[in-house]
């Protein structure tokens, strides 16, 4: 009995020493770091950069294969490949769109509504590279006298790539609304335009220091407005403009293989740690808290949906449990990095139960065919999360030297969040409608009725799953 205790005591002492060592070093280094910051742009931190490289890979994993599997598992057998192809093709298209102009429109100084064209074709992104390294970390300049620049501790290439994976998943989410019926050519044109004219500007409003929503103080840590409300509303517009699937309400449209959807949803969950904790753009405590609340809210939302369905429909379905988890991930996205675990439980439960209602009842009340519930889960879940961020935000998490109080929740913040939500809904809705009309005029939106009955796999791609 005596020896283990001695052993534990010794290891605890050693552990405490190890903890104390860097703390002592930090004390000595702190004034030096402050001086360096005052002297020039922040240095690159290899720990932060390593985490952001990993996060970027995690977020890409959300689209391919995560979302591709999640969506493909929920459609009918004849459309499985076409649905996977949508995620995969969007990944490739948006990569080039982002490289050519999307990144420049979103994350350069410009004005309040969009960036400038200084990073077209990523021009100048290698500006600070010497001897294989960036000599200074990336800074998002506000270009406005009283508005602080946003410093990072990572190279611009890493920041650009991280943001690219967000630009990829957002249009891929929309595909859930028009599953089983959109022409592939139409999808390619629509997504190119949408990424440039809808995603990039909204990302600029909310995340660039010069963006109007950012200046106003709208909180969106990882993309509740930019990604989820944006994609959700665009999805609703697609569902309304394209119309219902042939046979909707009469034919059996049961999912082909829900086990694929379970794998997809699970990959989304794992990848979402890069999405939310990565949005701290550093490997720090805020990233840790973002990861914590992401896990808690997702679990709460999955259980919320599951129990709501169990009570209302008699059985706790697997599709319900994974849908609830995705709703929770969506809702915690804007809030992560601002809220604490207590708030995250409430956000998760609210998202699970509310999205259960919107995807299961509201859709049928209004009669639109949002096939895979892009709006019901991402649109509504995003709105729930964006608003509740304004309620549960904990000041110290977002506090800086310039703003020692951070952004605490309250009525004033809730109002700002509502402004952010409404602007996104209106801009995304109107612009999506216009772009759908343009696409319709160019190539038409839907495949023919016979083609739709035969299935998109064979009609559009000339292949079948087996």
């Amino acid at each position, binding site marked *: 009995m005596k020896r283990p205790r001695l052993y534990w005591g010794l290891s605890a002492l050693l552990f405490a020493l190890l903890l104390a060592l860097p703390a002592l070093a930090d004390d000595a280094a702190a004034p030096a770091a402050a001086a360096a910051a005052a002297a020039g742009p922040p240095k690159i931190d290899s720990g932060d950069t390593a985490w952001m490289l990993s996060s970027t890979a995690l977020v890409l994993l959300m689209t391919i294969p995560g979302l591709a599997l999640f969506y493909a598992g929920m459609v009918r057998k004849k459309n499985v490949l076409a649905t996977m192809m949508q995620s995969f093709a969007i990944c490739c298209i948006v990569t080039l769109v982002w490289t050519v102009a999307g990144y420049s429109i979103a994350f350069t100084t410009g004005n309040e509504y969009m960036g400038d064209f200084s990073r077209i074709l990523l021009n100048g992104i290698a500006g600070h590279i010497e001897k294989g390294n960036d000599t200074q970390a990336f800074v998002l300049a506000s270009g406005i006298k009283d508005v602080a620049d946003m410093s990072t501790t990572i190279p611009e290439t890493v920041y650009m790539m991280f943001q690219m994976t967000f630009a990829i998943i957002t249009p891929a989410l929309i595909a859930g609304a028009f599953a089983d019926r959109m022409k592939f050519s139409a999808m390619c044109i629509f997504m190119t335009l949408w990424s440039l004219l809808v995603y990039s500007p909204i990302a600029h409003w909310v995340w660039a220091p010069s963006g109007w929503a950012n200046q106003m103080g709208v909180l969106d840590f990882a993309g509740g407005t930019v990604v989820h409300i944006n994609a959700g509303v665009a999805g609703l517009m697609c569902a309304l403009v394209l119309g219902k699937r042939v046979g909707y309400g009469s034919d*059996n*449209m*049961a999912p082909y293989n829900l086990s694929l959807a379970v794998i997809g949803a699970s990959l989304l969950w794992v990848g979402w740690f890069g999405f939310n904790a990565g949005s701290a753009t550093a490997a720090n405590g805020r990233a840790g808290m973002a990861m914590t609340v992401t896990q808690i809210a997702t679990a709460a939302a999955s259980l919320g949906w599951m129990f709501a369905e169990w009570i209302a429909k008699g059985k706790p379905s697997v*599709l319900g449990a994974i849908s609830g988890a995705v709703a929770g991930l969506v809702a915690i996205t804007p809030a992560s990095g601002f809220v604490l675990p207590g708030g995250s439980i409430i956000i998760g439960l609210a998202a699970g139960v509310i999205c259960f209602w919107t995807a299961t009842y509201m859709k049928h009340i209004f009669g639109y065919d949002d096939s895979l519930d892009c709006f019901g889960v991402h649109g509504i879940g995003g709105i729930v999360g964006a608003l509740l961020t304004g309620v549960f935000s904990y000041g110290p998490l977002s506090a800086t030297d310039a703003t020692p109080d951070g952004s605490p929740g309250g009525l004033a913040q809730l109002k700002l969040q509502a402004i952010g939500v409404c602007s996104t809904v209106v801009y995304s809705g109107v612009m999506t409608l216009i772009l759908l009309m343009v696409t319709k005029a160019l190539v038409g939106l839907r495949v023919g009725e016979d083609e739709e009955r035969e299935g998109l796999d064979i009609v559009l791609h000339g292949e079948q799953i087996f």
Partner: protein
Amino acid sequence: MKLIMAIIKPFKLDDVREALTPLGVQGLTVSEVKGFGRQKGQTEIYRGAEYHVSFLPKIKIEVVVPDDLTDQVMEAISKAAHTGKIGDGKIFVLDIERAMRIRTGEVDTEAL
């Protein structure tokens, strides 16, 4: 020779096979099929969309036996596949005119 065709619940297949072996049944053919009888179908719900699935998965067993084994085989199958609940299945018996084992060229009961 008779062809005995039985539609049974999928999870009863092993029981049926075990019941037939002692009778001297040398082989049988099994297919996964779908159908409905008095059991009708079942309702599936996906995010509030309800689908009535009228065809349920069943197993179809086909076995050809000499005439004198017919009654025993029918009884063995019906005993092994019985649960007493609706949807247990049915057994049909048809006449078989000829049979041949491809490998050896044996015909009729020799081929079974």
